[in-house]
């Protein structure tokens, strides 16, 4: 039953937003814009600094020449570029199977107490400072092997990447709609095939993004490599020998008292940034194409 409208209650006429509301609105939009700018500022500064300092030394020779002895001008970081590719490659080989496996398992079967334990372990491992990972790998790999090696460096990076990959994989696998699983189960697919042929393909773009984020993070790590891959002034692509990597080389060159080395350190940092960006751009483009056709 509707009651008569008391005269005190006016009809809710449609007029524009009130003045205080407009002020608040403008204020909040302004604040959001300001925060966004503030967030982008450091990145902009980093890129500006790297480009302005590094572009001079980023010559073709930088890519193909070996480091020159002190005092001799020129020279490049060819060995460190290849070394970084090798070490991060080993890191991926270590971390992707373990991380993706753990993530899928957590998402599909991780409801119990064991799942919670694994999740907690992964989070703690993810929070371990990278230098500690380096020292641990030193104790576990370098000492038994008797010397520093590319392999040890890769394992250290792999340990750093595993928790990120595992937790992000879990998140994206959880996002796969339940209806896909039901459809596959109703067709008589056993649950492992549902995971393998429906869930993982549906989550593959997300898993790749997770891996890339972990890779981008690990590719720039210096601390865990100091105790493991060590660095090398000479050409080496042997997995059981010390190997040069960009971050360690940048570290060495940046604190050296020679302006020429400092310039090369900037160029190395710029290159590292470009490498990570390029890898992620290429992988993103290829997955987008796969996503469209399959």
């Amino acid at each position, binding site marked *: 039953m509707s009651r008569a409208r008391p005269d005190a209650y006016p009809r809710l006429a449609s007029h524009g937003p009130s003045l205080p509301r407009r002020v608040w609105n403008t204020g909040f939009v302004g604040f959001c814009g300001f925060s966004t700018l503030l967030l982008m500022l450091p990145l902009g500064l980093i890129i500006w600094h790297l480009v302005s300092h590094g572009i001079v030394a980023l010559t073709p020779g930088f890519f193909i020449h070996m480091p020159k002895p002190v005092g001799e001008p020129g020279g490049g970081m060819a060995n460190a570029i290849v070394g970084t590719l090798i070490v991060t490659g080993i890191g991926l080989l270590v971390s992707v199977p373990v991380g993706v496996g753990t993530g899928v398992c957590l998402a599909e079967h991780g409801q119990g107490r064991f799942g919670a334990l694994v999740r907690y372990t992964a989070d703690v491992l993810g929070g371990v400072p990278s230098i500690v990972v380096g020292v641990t790998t030193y104790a576990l790999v370098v000492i038994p092997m008797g010397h520093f090696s590319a392999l040890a460096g890769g394992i250290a990076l792999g340990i750093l990447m595993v928790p990120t990959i595992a937790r992000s994989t879990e998140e994206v696998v959880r996002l796969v709609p339940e209806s896909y699983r039901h459809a*596959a189960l109703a067709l008589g697919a056993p649950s492992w095939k549902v995971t393998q042929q429906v869930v993982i393909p549906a989550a593959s773009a997300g898993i790749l993004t997770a891996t890339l984020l972990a890779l981008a993070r690990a590719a720039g790590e210096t601390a865990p490599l100091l105790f493991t891959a060590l660095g090398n002034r000479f050409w080496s692509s042997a997995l059981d020998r010390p190997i040069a990597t960009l971050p360690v080389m940048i570290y060495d060159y940046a604190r050296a008292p020679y302006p020429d080395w400092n310039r090369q350190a900037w160029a190395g940092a710029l290159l590292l940034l470009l490498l990570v960006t390029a890898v992620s751009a290429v992988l993103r483009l290829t997955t987008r194409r796969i996503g469209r056709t399959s």
Partner: protein
Amino acid sequence: MTLEVPRTMPPKPEIPRPAQIGSLAPPVVPPPAAPAAAPAAGIEAGPAKVAVETREFSLYYGARHALKSVNLDLPEGTVTAIIGPSGCGKSTLLRSFNRMNDLIPGVRVEGRVRISDLDVFSPSTDVVELRRRVGMVFQRPNPFPKSIFENVAFGLRMLGLRDAAELEWRVEQSLLQAALWSEVRDRLGTSALSLSGGQQQRLCIARCLAVEPEVVLMDEPASALDPTATARIEELVLQLKSRYTLIVVTHNMQQAARISDRTAFMLEGALVEVDETRKLFTSPSQRLTEDYITGRFG
């Protein structure tokens, strides 16, 4: 990789039931003897073989008694509609036939469900095999994010079918049966998600038919679709009943009246009445049924 099917496929006006797939094949069930001759008198034609049967079947979600001693016989080659208000247990009953309820923790059953020669809840029953023989179409179209071809081929690949020519043939047959072939024959390689909602649902039906089920369960198959797409699905259901036993859960009583041979009315987990559709809607034997179909509640 192109998934183009050769255009030169010999025309197959009459779709023969292909040989059973793989070693999981059950004994071949003879298709029901051509009921097309007397569609109106389909039921009276003789005592049809019972394809699905439940006996004192009860189901509990934890402490909640969701299905109460359901006794139901569904003859082979018929469409049965299950109607009833929301929460009456019609979907639960449907999902018991292929044991999709197993996915819900805390489900417990009593009594028996038999589908042809399978004792559904017997511990020796292979759920994977059961679900191949009892296909399901869901309320919302749920194609995989794969190509149209791969969606239909999915179940076949699950059964271990590898031969490309046979896969193509079976995919084509399934799409023909689902009345989708003419619309997608030129783009089998494109993503299933590019289809319209109604097409997606027919694709899901094709995907379900590809593994040659004996019984097809449909859980409100048209409730997420517009009227035109709904009409096409209903038409399809009528075409399919000569080859499959269909059980359709629906909210829509007019739909039940249009497509089904028999209708089961459920209320609060109990089966109130099951009869020939025309009889149930014109002269129901139970007061509750009459109240529901005349709109007095629900």
